């Protein structure tokens, strides 16, 4: 059992989906409760995983490695480090909350919906567990289709447009990724004499500079679309606005993290030299995303698309932190992946709750809600504060480390990014003011009910997480730090980049003269 715990966590939701197939489709209540129970057990399994995970330890844990298609070097290779562990836990938690949030809003084809949600869970957890590139790709694609259906079947008015846009963007990226995967496969064959899709092995293969650039480019494009990095972001607002609440929660909370996770798990260890080459380009795009996303969020009329553009801005922060390529930046970025999942997930859940009451998300339809819905307003305020990174909430810790790391890597990047912190306060507080403060101007808002018990159960865990991570994030760092160090060491192994003593990635200058080499050596000894 313990040796196969990753298999269990990954495929348990799939098992649940199969079970749902057996339930008659008009039995809505049984479908809902089974889906909830399955996702809940999956969450407990991931907690068990967390409990058994050895913090501060190096290397992958709970590894499973079974040959699958031996002739092609494909194996069922799973294993997790601290980064994947935390993302898995976040995924399972958000999944429970998303399912719970769908109880009243999904009324059509209920069975199909919950089957999609569970299938999606398996795909997402699988991506975070995979250590085999082929397996990774399979889970990556498995994830795509349930989401397509969730947006396309249970979405809003323009759902078809949004769903197709989502799939086309993503497919375009994954096709390039597939080509790159195949290229690597053959390259590895000529290097080692055998086929292998094993990520850990592939990361040890030396690749020429040109090849790295192309391969990095192909993967990076796939991941950048997912993140989404400016200017590949235009699918996101449409997908968010049209998706049902749960779809938005999972999309923002987990699916976007697939992009950043891909960078840290695949691009960086396998193509270290290209990673360093691409720093300025990706950093500049991230900065544009931070500022651009915030500015456009400010002028949105629909609160959901405001949150969507704020995601573009926040994901820009994460990318910037990752490509600072030092401990503070990368650890901050990984933590911020969780934080964004919690805060933005919570925002979408809250927006969904008000949408269920009023069937509109236009900001100017509201105003004065603080009077009729005090508890909802208080929770919304807490989540807003977490989103703008107020100290003692989760958002601050991540954002601070990202900026601190970025500052070390490049002062100007950090200065520009920090101005995004001002903008986030502008658009979030302005939105909050227009929705919650002032007098009630719209009669329809007068009789709105405050949070129900089910809704309280949904928001309370997220609020607790917001404060827990804000006040005592050390347990998380104990799990993140070894994983980030390992990625950096993998990068350093290639010899084209080096990791200095306080864990920053530096390119090794190829054209150093012998004399300069001596000086560098002397300096090192001097220290």
């Amino acid at each position, binding site marked *: 059992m313990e040796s196969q715990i990753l298999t269990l966590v990954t495929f348990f939701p799939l098992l649940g989906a199969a079970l749902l197939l057996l339930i008659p489709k008009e039995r809505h209540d049984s479908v809902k409760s089974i889906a909830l129970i399955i996702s809940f057990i999956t969450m407990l399994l991931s907690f068990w995983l967390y409990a058994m995970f050895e913090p501060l330890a190096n290397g992958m844990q709970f590894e499973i490695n079974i040959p699958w298609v031996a002739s092609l070097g494909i194996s069922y290779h799973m294993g997790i480090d601290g980064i994947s562990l935390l993302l898995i836990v976040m995924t399972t938690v958000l999944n429970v909350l998303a399912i719970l949030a769908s109880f009243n809003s999904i009324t059509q084809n209920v069975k199909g919906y919950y089957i999609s949600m569970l299938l999606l869970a398996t795909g997402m957890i699988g991506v975070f567990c995979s250590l085999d590139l082929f397996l990774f790709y399979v889970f990556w694609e498995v994830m795509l289709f349930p989401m397509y259906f969730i947006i396309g079947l249970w979405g809003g008015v323009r759902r078809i447009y949004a769903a197709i846009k989502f799939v086309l963007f993503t497919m375009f990226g994954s096709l390039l990724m597939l080509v790159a995967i195949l290229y690597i496969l053959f390259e590895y064959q000529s290097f080692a004499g055998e086929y292998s899709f094993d990520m850990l092995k592939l990361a040890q293969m030396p690749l020429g500079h040109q090849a790295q650039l192309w391969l990095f480019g192909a993967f990076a494009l796939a991941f950048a679309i997912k993140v989404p990095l400016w200017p590949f972001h235009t699918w996101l607002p449409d997908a968010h606005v049209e998706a049902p609440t749960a779809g938005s929660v999972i999309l923002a909370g987990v699916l976007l993290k697939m992009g950043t996770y891909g960078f840290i798990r695949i691009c960086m260890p396998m193509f270290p030299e290209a990673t360093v080459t691409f720093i300025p380009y990706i950093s500049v795009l991230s900065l544009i995303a931070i500022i651009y996303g915030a500015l*456009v969020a400010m002028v949105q009329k629909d609160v959901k698309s405001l949150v969507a553009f704020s995601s573009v801005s926040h994901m820009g922060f994460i990318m910037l932190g990752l490509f600072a390529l030092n401990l503070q930046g990368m*650890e901050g970025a990984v933590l911020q992946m969780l934080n964004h999942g919690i805060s933005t997930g919570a925002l979408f859940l809250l927006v969904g709750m008000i949408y269920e009451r009023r069937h509109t998300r236009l900001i100017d339809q509201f105003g004065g809600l603080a*009077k009729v819905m005090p508890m909802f307003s208080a929770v919304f305020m807490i989540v807003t504060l977490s989103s703008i990174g107020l100290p*003692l909430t989760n958002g601050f810790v991540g954002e601070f*480390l990202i900026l601190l790391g970025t500052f070390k890597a490049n002062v100007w990047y950090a200065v520009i990014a920090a101005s995004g912190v*001002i903008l986030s*306060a502008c658009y979030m507080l302005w939105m909050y003011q227009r929705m919650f403060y*002032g007098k009630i101007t719209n009669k329809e808002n007068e009789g709105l009910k405050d949070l129900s018990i089910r809704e309280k159960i949904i928001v309370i865990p997220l609020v607790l997480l917001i404060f827990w991570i804000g006040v005592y994030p050390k347990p998380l760092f104990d799990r993140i730090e070894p994983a980030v160090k390992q990625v950096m060491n993998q990068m350093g192994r290639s010899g084209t980049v080096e990791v200095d003593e306080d864990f920053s990635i530096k390119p090794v200058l190829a054209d150093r003269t012998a004399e300069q080499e001596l000086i560098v050596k002397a300096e090192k000894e001097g220290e």
Partner: protein
Amino acid sequence: MTEYLYLIPILPLVGFLINGLLIGRIPRPVITLIGCGSVALSLALSLSLFFELKALPADSRMIEQVLFTWIVSGNFHVSMGFLLDPLSAVMILVVTGVGFLIHVYSVGYMHKDPGYGRYFTYLNLFTFSMLTLVLADNFLLMFVGWEGVGLCSYLLIGFWYHKKSAADAGKKAFIVNRIGDFGFLIGMFIVFWQVGSLNFVDINAMAPAAFIAGGSLITITCLLLFVGATGKSAQIPLFVWLPDAMEGPTPVSALIHAATMVTAGVYMIVRSNVLYMMSPDALFVVAVVGALTAIFAATIGLAQNDIKRVLAYSTVSQLGYMFLACGVAAFTAGIFHLMTHAFFKALLFLASGSVLHAMSDEKDIRKMGGLKKYIPITYWTFLIGTLAITGIPGLSGFFSKDEILWKAFSSDYGHPVFWVLGFVTAGLTAFYMFRLVYLTFHGPERMDDETKSHLHESPKSMTVPLIILAALAIAGGWVGMPHILGATNYFEHWLEPVMASGRNAVDTHALMSTSSNAGMEWSLMVASVGLVLISIFVARMFYNKKPELATAWQKKMSGLHKLLLNKYYIDEIYGAVIVRPTVYFSLFLWKVVDVVLIDGLINGVAVVYNDLSESLRQVQTGRVRTYATWFAVGVVVLIAVFMRG
């Protein structure tokens, strides 16, 4: 007792949690007990720790208590830890002392408000944040308190959120503060990467080696931190939020926007005096901004008609004095004025709150007058506060202001021009404060009969704090009397250990000029007292004896009056230059770049692809004859290729 240091901020936090979580479920007396009681306990603990600290020998008056590691990443390491030294001891006494009085006052002031529970919840959260700010043992935890007080300020300014002006003012305060925080953050980054720690004790020890004194890096660092201070402490150019903050309940204006939060910038600079001492250029900028803000805000104060706004501009102006003191390296004088200002300005605000209480919330002094006989306690306490702020000899404000003026003149970093600016400000202050006194409490009664029939003195819970604060406003300055009066400056001695490291950092001799020129000090003091007396006399002529004079002058200088009344149109300028262009630019990004350019490009690709497929579809005619033709062509081509190969 020192092991209970952490309880000083934690007690109000507990009060916040209880009142906040049980909001709407507990009766008012319990809310009051928890709200005021938690701060009272903090005050008692602060007092006992103060005396414990005092009992230690001067050079070992420093207690650090680390609770747990907060953020750790590689060599970056920050704890939740508190530091009690002479400086933070003064601050916690001011915060809990004045804070407690204001809590008690609020019981009376807010008794009719439906948001009573919410009010005390926020007030306790504020006290927690402010105590964290001043007790933090490192920059980052200080920043926690810093942002926390900003949040509470936002929540309390917008406390009556159904009023658009209140909600707007709260948001404005938060955003303007964020602009300052931007500088604070970047400054912190430089300190960390240069020194390797954000802990104050480490920084004091290592900064002299990590930075080159007088170099550009230390100047940039100090200026960035100062940007943070200008936001929080409402200095040029970020002062615009403070006057609007008067939308909040009056006790909030007294606590947050006069006595404690707005002085955080001054505290921060004094706390990092080691850094500032290493950069004379940064000190010069601080002094210039402080002096200019002092006089600039005072001129606006001359023409305002809202009783609270006059006090708000006066706060901005007085904070300018404190920065002037810091800028001439007279940090002790800055903190001294911070303390006396906390007493008399809290008093003035609370007394003005008592006026509003009597006047059914009418804030316009043109509609007051003659209130003296209706609300005598309020009048006398307000007058004491006014005498203190104008610097009448013997009252607290006199000692602290005089010390600042003298240091501005005589310190190695001072300059006669700084003194002149401070001197003129003192005159302006006396004028607008007495204008306020005369228009509010003296002369004809200009209120309507309805208001008049409701005029009444405030309840005990409000007047008792007023009386205590009035006593402090009188006597609070006696701990820091100047040497030339033959007294001992206890306050300076008390803070000496905190300032010593700063002086050692630059290795100078006797920066705090001793009374080397007693004659000069005497003459300057006499001059400023003279100016104050003349200003009071002029105010009395204008606003009491011959009101027609005021009207005549106002007509004569209507352009200037309009400029001052509209606060130099600063808000309008910011709106036109920054806010509106940003909104239009954002709309452009959304409607043009996002929708037209990026999506247009992608949809364009799709359209082209579609059209292409459409034409290629023509090939699939479904007619066997066409296929057969293409088949034949294919065969011919293939054969041709093979024949050649």
